[in-house]
């Protein structure tokens, strides 16, 4: 199984187990922007108590659960990692947090068709990709934002974006990136 098959397999298991989820990170910025390589699939999950082990057990051989649970410092999300040893690809599971933007982003998520598999997946809206990546603001996040703005900038709901960037104090950074993207 390669990385692509591992990612698709985990998504199918989440659907099968009826665990609410949404693909974020590079998967979502690639959908709205310019493609870049990624060595992990970041998935936000609305986990109930036993869902992590239920999911892990359903995956079977070849997947390894990293038992360490980690807190991310930018937005306070808690992460678990499942490793796929054959491909080296990681599945990063972020528990849906109480953060107001995370809640709204999850509520606004969209169903999108993954053509090759005739399957569908949940992803955030393009606006929420921009808002979230502005909070992380690592160089690769800023590059992703510029690419989303270049490709999808004309169709974005700017009032919604500004409401959150004002809240997160990231409006100045957004304006700089808009200028970089010439949009």
């Amino acid at each position, binding site marked *: 199984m390669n*990385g692509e098959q591992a990612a*698709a397999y985990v998504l199918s298991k989440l659907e099968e187990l009826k665990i609410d989820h949404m693909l974020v990170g590079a998967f979502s910025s690639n959908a709205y922007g310019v*493609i870049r390589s990624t060595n992990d699939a970041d998935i936000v999950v609305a986990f109930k108590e036993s869902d992590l082990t239920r999911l892990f057990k359903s995956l079977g051989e070849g997947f390894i659960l990293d*038992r360490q649970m980690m807190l991310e410092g930018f937005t306070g999300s808690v992460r678990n990692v499942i490793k796929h*040893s054959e491909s080296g690809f990681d599945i990063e599971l972020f528990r849906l947090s109480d953060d107001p933007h995370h809640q709204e982003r999850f509520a606004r998520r969209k169903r999108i068709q993954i053509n090759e598999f005739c399957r569908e997946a949940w992803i955030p809206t393009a606006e929420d990709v921009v808002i979230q990546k502005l909070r992380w603001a690592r160089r690769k996040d800023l590059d992703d934002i510029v690419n989303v703005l270049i490709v999808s900038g004309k169709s974005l709901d700017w009032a919604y974006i500004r409401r959150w960037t004002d809240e997160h104090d990231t409006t100045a950074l957004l304006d700089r990136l808009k200028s970089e993207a010439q949009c």
Partner: protein
Amino acid sequence: MSVNSQAEILALQKSILESKAERSRSVAPGMKMMEGVRLFDRVRERVKAAIRSQNSDWSEELIHQEFLRQLENQRRHAEKGIYRVVGQVNDDGTITPVTSEDEDVNER
């Protein structure tokens, strides 16, 4: 750098951006979404080919382990200072909290 060459560079930059955007808009979002992991799959095979060429006596298993080691180092470097360990997942799905305030993912 002359004013003319600066203007030429800016015009070229703009045209590259527009051409990138045009290509990306022409592909369906769902198709693009999986492309990032496909690129990773291709890169993995190239990295392993490079490891193989430097270590012709290594088994495929050893080459794969070396690839995983390099990838893990790269991930730790990229994540340094971002995450800290807050718990341990038990077999039954329950979580045992970790009390240390400053334990870092890089100490795994």
